[in-house]
Structures are given as C-alpha cells and as structure tokens.
C-alpha cells in the first residue's frame, strides 16, 4: 500500500525579552542555578504575576509577520499539573483566546515549487524550570532560572506531507522569528524547539490516521530523522495489521528511535481555567498597526528583492535570505564590490561552506563583510586570481587580518606586468619546441599545458587572462 504521512508541528520559540513574562528576573542563559529566580518565579505564597508588555509586543509582531489575525482580547489560562520544576503547580498559558490566530507561511520545496502551510494559532506562555538529575547523589536538583521565560507556542495545521516539508516549515518559522528579532533562534540553548504530530494514512484517503506526538526536538536534522523513524514505525505497525496508539513519544537522537512516554489513557486533565490574577489583554487596531510598522523586511520579500535588485536566481536568493545575518552579509559585500554575482557565489559558496564545515553561525564568522568585500575587490582588480583568493581566504579565516595585508606579506600579488609575462611566455615557447609544433599542427588543448607551466613557475600568481592572450598571440606568429 502507498502510505502518506500527515505532519503538524508545535514550535516553542523563546521570546528575546530581557526579563521574564510575569516577573522582573533576567532571562539570560547560563547563570548559576536559581540566581535568576525571584519570589514570583519561586511561586512563593502571595505572589502575583504582572505581564511583561515586551513579550506581548513580540507575540503580536510575530502574528503580523505571518499575516495572522491578532486576538483583540486574549486571555491567560492556568494549566494545572504537579511537577517539581513547575513552581506554582500550574503553567500560565493561553487556551481559548490566544494572542495570535490563523495565519500562514510559504515554504519552498526541493523541486522549486512552493506550498502554503497554515498556522492555526500562536499563544503566549511561560516556560518551566529544569530538573537536574545528575550530581545530587540520587536526589533531584531544581533550577528555576528558566521558569517564567516567555515563549510563544506556534501551532501549525496538519499541512505537511513529508519530513522535508516539516523541516522547510521549521526553517521558515525560524527565519521569520529571527528576522523580526523576537527570538534568538538558538537551538542548542533550547530557544527554538518543536514537537511533531505524525500520523499515517493510505494515500488518497481523506481521514487522518491516529497520531503520535514526538516531544522536544531541538534541531532541524533531528526533526527530519525523528519523523522518518516514526513513519517507519507506524508503517510497520499498520502493515502487520496493528493499530497506532495515540500517545506522546520521546525522540532519542543517540539511538535514533522514538519511545513511548505516555499514552492517551494516562493523559492528564489539566483543569484549564482563566487565570484570575491576570486581566484579559485588550489590543486595539492602532496598537497592532504600530507594531506592524516596526516589521523589518521579511525573508520572502527580501528574496524577491534580491532576485530583482541583484539578478540572483531563485535558489541563490533563497539560500542567501535564509538568515538575516547571511542576507545582510551578502548585501554588504554585493554593494561594496558592485558585483552581485561574484558576491553571491563567494558568500553562498566559499563562506557558507566554511561556516557549515565548522558548524558556525554567520554571527561567529571570523571574517566580517567588509573584509570579505576587500578580498573580492582584489579579484576584481586582478591583484589576485580566484584560486589565490581562496588561499588568501584560508589565511584570513585562520589568522585573521585583511586580504591586502595577507596578499602583501605572503607575496601573492598577481603578476600582470606585460613585460615580465611576455618573457615567461617566450621562455616556455623556447623550452618546449615539440609541444609548440604539435599545437601549431592543431592540438589546441596544449594551451592548458603552456599556461600550467607558467603558473607552476610563478606559483599561480601570473594573471591567467593576460597569459592566455600572450600565448595565443605568440603561438600564432
């Protein structure tokens, strides 16, 4: 049987506010345990929450970025359950009246086509703390630094039909939240993570199959892998005549498998009800428009502009706009060099390749846009060849410094002096009479041999264009 997978994602994006959603504590990552938890975060008797306006604005900003309806009157609810890292015994979240309603984003598929993915809603909520099971000799430690960190949970429609679509969607949301500055997108630190709802159905069937929810996946690669192994698991069950159980499963990236956490029968009754400590949030159209006006150019618009302004093809434009930093880097280099094509191939090729290889974000690039443009300028003015430029780039990458100083100190400057080059050409012709004869007899491929000889002699520094021209001229004499 032909199976079709149906995927929906719930993405948790940590909002980039300085303080927590309901208290003044800092949200900075990595502090000593419990040093960023005040009486409110600790859930002390008598404390009350006060909403951080900045978190609200960021959630609205996200909503406007995906063209969603904004909840004019949104309500915080309490989700009640006991867990040691949940200090109040309930999580403050939004159930029935979320801040962001229906919206959509467009993803691009590998064949170049696009697909719209619906966003059902996005709501504001607080993160829990962390339980630490190591280093306490059998006991559990609790760190409440993260408790109360603002999140938006972005819930998609079950619109994705392959793990690749799921990844493309997740990347798209990632690029939007980082473009508009509401989330730092740092997946290692858990600032951006997702749960995936996966179900299978016979291709052509309209009704959804029973779904499993895969919890807490914190990288693009793992989303793809987790969904793939879950697809296999569900197909195995279905094809051997079994039924998929509705349950929550944990993806284990070390073993590359999903494991049952709890079934629907164990599902808790969270006894949701409106939080009486927080008033409903009322937002006016003017508020929404004021926030919409602060939106920067979004990934889709930037891509179209890059295609238009810099004459890039769709694929290059997509890659270069996948993150704001990369796009800014490219744009700066393109403008400084005046050659978008050169900038595009060097940014999306050489630079992105090196960053990927070392697993670096462009923010951590050892070379800034200005330095990079400086390197490309030397290709443009024939100071160095493309090949030498890669060597210079290597040096800039590892040792730092500008292209010019490296070219100078390593003596990599291209030889463009016509007299010197002419002498070299004369020498290579004189040294290789056999090849000259063969060339003149029509074996034109030998041109490469002559150029190679000169490059070898000059360690690649001879201007290839000039040599070619000189050789052609001399050999036809």
């Amino acid at each position, binding site marked *: 049987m032909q199976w079709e997978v149906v995927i929906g994602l719930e993405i948790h994006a940590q909002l980039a506010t300085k303080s927590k959603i309901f208290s003044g504590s800092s949200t900075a990552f990595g502090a000593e345990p419990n040093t960023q938890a005040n*009486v409110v975060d*600790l*859930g*002390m*008797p*008598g*404390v*009350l*929450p*006060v*909403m951080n306006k900045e978190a609200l604005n960021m959630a609205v900003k996200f909503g406007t970025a995906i063209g969603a309806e904004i909840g004019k009157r949104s309500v915080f609810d*309490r989700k*009640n359950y*006991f867990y*040691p890292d949940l*200090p*109040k*015994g*309930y999580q403050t979240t939004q159930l029935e009246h979320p801040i962001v309603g229906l919206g959509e984003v467009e993803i691009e598929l590998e064949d170049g086509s696009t697909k719209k993915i619906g966003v059902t809603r996005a709501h504001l909520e607080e993160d829990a703390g962390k339980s630490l099971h190591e280093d306490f000799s059998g006991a559990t430690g*609790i760190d409440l630094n993260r408790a109360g960190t603002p999140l938006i949970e972005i819930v998609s429609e079950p619109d994705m039909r392959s793990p690749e679509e799921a990844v493309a969607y997740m990347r798209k949301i990632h690029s939007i939240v980082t473009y508009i500055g509401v989330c730092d997108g740092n997946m290692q630190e858990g600032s951006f993570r997702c749960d995936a709802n996966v179900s299978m159905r016979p291709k052509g069937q309209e009704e959804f199959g029973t779904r499993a929810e895969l919890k807490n996946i914190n990288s693009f690669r793992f989303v793809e892998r987790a969904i793939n192994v879950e697809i296999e698991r569900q197909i195995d069950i279905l094809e051997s005549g079994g039924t998929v159980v509705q349950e929550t499963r944990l993806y284990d990236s070390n073993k590359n498998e999903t494991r049952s956490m709890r079934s629907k029968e164990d599902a808790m*009754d969270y*006894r*949701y*009800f409106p939080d*009486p*400590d*927080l*008033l409903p949030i009322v937002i006016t159209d003017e508020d929404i428009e004021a926030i919409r006006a602060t939106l920067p150019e979004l990934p889709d618009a930037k891509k179209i502009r890059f295609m238009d302004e810099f004459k890039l093809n769709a694929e290059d434009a997509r890659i270069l706009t996948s993150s704001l930093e990369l796009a800014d880097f490219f744009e700066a280099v393109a403008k400084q060099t005046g050659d978008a094509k050169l900038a595009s191939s060097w940014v999306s090729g050489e630079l992105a390749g090196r960053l990927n290889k070392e697993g670096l974000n462009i923010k951590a690039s050892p070379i800034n846009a200005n330095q990079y443009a400086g390197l490309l300028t030397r290709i443009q003015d024939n100071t160095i060849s493309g090949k030498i430029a890669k060597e210079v780039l290597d040096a800039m990458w590892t040792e730092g410094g500008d292209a010019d100083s490296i070219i100078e100190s390593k003596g990599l400057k291209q030889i463009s002096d016509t007299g010197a080059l002419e002498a070299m050409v004369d020498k290579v012709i004189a040294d290789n009479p056999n090849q000259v004869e063969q060339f003149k007899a029509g074996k034109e491929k030998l041109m490469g041999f002559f150029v190679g000889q000169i490059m070898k002699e000059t360690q690649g520094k001879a201007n290839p264009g000039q040599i070619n021209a000189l050789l052609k001229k001399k050999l036809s004499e």
Partner: protein
Amino acid sequence: MHTKTIAQLAASLKAGEFSSVELTQHYINRIKNFDQGLNSYITVVEERAIEQATEADKIIATGNAQPLTGIPFAQKDIFCTDGVKTTCGSKMLDNFISPYDATVIESFNNAGAVMLGKTNMDEFAMGSSNETSFYGTVKNPWNTEYVPGGSSGGAAASVAARLAPASTGTDTGGSIRQPAALCNLTGLKPSYGRVSRFGMIAFASSLDQAGTFTQTAEDAALMLNVMAGLDEKDSTSIDEPVPDYSANLNQDVKGLKVGLPKEYFADGLDAEVAKRIDGAIEEYKKLGAEFVEISLPNTHLSVPAYYIVAPAECSSNLSRFDGVRFGHRCDDPKDLEDLYKRSRGEGFGSEVKRRILVGAYALSSGYYDAYYLKAQKIRRLIANDFTEAFKEVDVIMSPTTPTPAFKIGEKNDDPISMYYSDIYTIAVNLAGLPGISVPCGFVNNMPVGLQVIAPYFAESKLLNVAHQYQQVTDWHQRMPEAYK
C-alpha cells in the same frame, strides 16, 4: 489607652500624652494577659514591635508624624511579612518565614505603624467560624463559648477585646464583615481591586480583598487611606484615584436613598436580628434617609455559585504548597508522588481538602461548563442585579449575618449550614462591591451587624453613611466586660 480609637490615639501621641513605645507595650501586656483565653494571635512580635515604636517615637518627636505613625496594629496572618512567620492558619506553613513583605504590610510600614503580631484565622481563610485553624479555635470575647466568625476571626477577636486598636483582615465571601458583626466591630471590605493583593496568600483570587477591623468608621477611613491604591505588582488592582476617605465622613445623610433587598429579609433571618436591623433603619430615617424595597432576584444563587468559583480558584492557588520549595514536607518521601501526597495530606486540614476536591472536580474536563462556566455566568447576573439596584438607590442595607454568633462546635458536622452563615455577604464579593458591617445592637448579649453596600469605589460614601450612624448611636463603643 486601649479604649481609644486610632484617631484618639494619634491625637494623644501627637500631644505627648504617652509614647508609641508605652502604647505598644500596653497592648503587648494585654495580649499576654488575655490572649490565652481567646487565641486571637498566632504570632506576637514584641521585640520587633518595640523597635518599630521606638522609630515611630523619633518621627513623632520631629513633628513629621503621619496619621498612623506609632499606632499599633494586628495583621491577619495571611499577609506575608518579611522575616516573620506567616502561616495562613495552616500546618502547611507552620515553618514558613516570609522572605518579603505584602504590599499591605509595606503600606503600614511606610505609614510608620507598628505591628503587634499576626492574627489567627481559618486555615487559608476557608471557614466562617475560625474553627479550621491549625492553631486552634478563636473564641468570641463577648462569650468565649461562641465563635468569633471567620475567616478573620483572630483579627476580629483581637480588636473586640482591645488587644489591638484595629486590625487588617481579608474578605473572600464575608470574612471581614461576618466576624465584625459577630464581634461588634466596624468591618470594611473595599471594592475588588481597591487594595493590593500582592503578598496576601491567595484563597480565591477573583474574590479576595483586604480590609479593616476598627472600632469606628472614622478609623476605617484612616486605615483605608493608607491601604488603597494601584499596585503595579498586582495586575488586578485598579488605577482609580484614591480620595481622602476621611474627608466626607461628616456629610449628612439627608435624602440618602437606601435600598432594602427583600431577599435579604426573607426566611432564614433570625427574628431578633431583624428587629435590630429595623432599629438601625429607624435611626437612619431620623437622620433623613429614605428607604425603598428593592429586589436582587438572583440572591438565592449566590451561595451555590460562590462554592464553585472559590473552591475552583483555591484548588489551583493551593497547588504551590507541594512540599518542594517551602512549607511542610513529609518525612522520608519514597518518591515524588509520595512526597506530594503525604506533604499535602499532612499539611492541609479537612476543610481545605474538601474545597480543593470540590474545586478540582468543578474544573475537570466534562464538568467545567456545567459548573465553573455556569457559576461565572451566575456571577454576572448577580453583579447585574446590583448595577440595576444602584440606578435607584445610593446604598443598600441588610443584616450582615442571618443570626448572631453560634456556639463553637455547633456547625462542625454541617458544612452547608456553615456556608449559609455568609448568605448576605457572599453576593457582594461575587459582584466585587464594597461593603461594611456596623454594630447595631445585641441579641442575648451577642452583637448584631448592619451591612451597608455601595457602588464600585464608593467607599467614601460607605464610610460616610456608617460614620453618621455612629454619631447618633453608641453600639460600636460597647466592649465586652471581661476585657475592660
């Protein structure tokens, strides 16, 4: 000294008749002498009180005294007090020293007031008789075989016996007005949102409101002046201007339109209590007030709706008492579930458990619409009843309670009958209105209270109406023989 009101004490302090230290020591001595028989305090902070009084005397000496500088108060043990045990009447918090001050406590500190100690109360403010406290039953100073009312029973008894000139309380369904009525005090519950709830241990967040127990309405005004106002730490506190509540006390009540809700004078009201209320109405008529009968047609729904909303909120509010970070933790928990079950099982008393169970049930999936949602709709109907009524009248008057104080133990096996002792006060909380109970006579030597209800944020009116009555009656000046 202890027969004086706050206003009189302030004048004496200012005139140098005695110092705040002397005054404070006097009350501390009275507590030592009398409180064993009443059990109105859970914690007395003698040293701290004397320190505060010493500071206050320095301020008074400079001539910069505020109205409450140097006045001793008793604080209900529901208000978190930095460095002081704050129990909420529960074993759960028997070991809890608060690391911070409630906004109410901060307000009194800033006003230069002195805190004598923390008063006994029904556990987590759940009760109408002060019999559910982990620290034992509080006795009514008018007759120690009787309950003082609750949940602010200790707060009421302490002032009734003049073991403090005045005290704070909280009122979720009548917990200030009912004990005030039963102990012959002036008990003010301001509008919801008038006084910050920050640091006040939550029972039912949408109903809880801090208020005062005083000898007079004039004193209540002095205290409210200090307590009222927007608090940025409480999102439900309201940004409404705070008038000088003392300013309008002396306005006459000629032409005041008073509504008497017929539902509050129906079956269940003790005939003798009814007579005392009639007596009060006659006094007001002499002062020129006009009375009309009104209807609050959804009154019969208020107790059932309250006993859904309040337990539902409490079931969630009390989840934080889990034995993990503070409060009671069971010995040798074998796992997390055992820790939760035993810590909570041992830490909470039976009335608290009853309400948590009721509340959790009302919120559970499949029942939410039938109970919680319906109760919230009823709540709106009840509020609308009052809104309609206030189109016709300036204030509403009624008995505060259907009967005078009942005997200790009398209603222990009958929670429903206990719940109905708040029948006249609960609707006011559901609507979020301000209410006050004023002494208006005695039945068999036990006090009776008149309740006055005003529109939102009309505390000035409420205090004015109560004060005018106290200018022509002396019920509020009477105090129990044994504590004179």
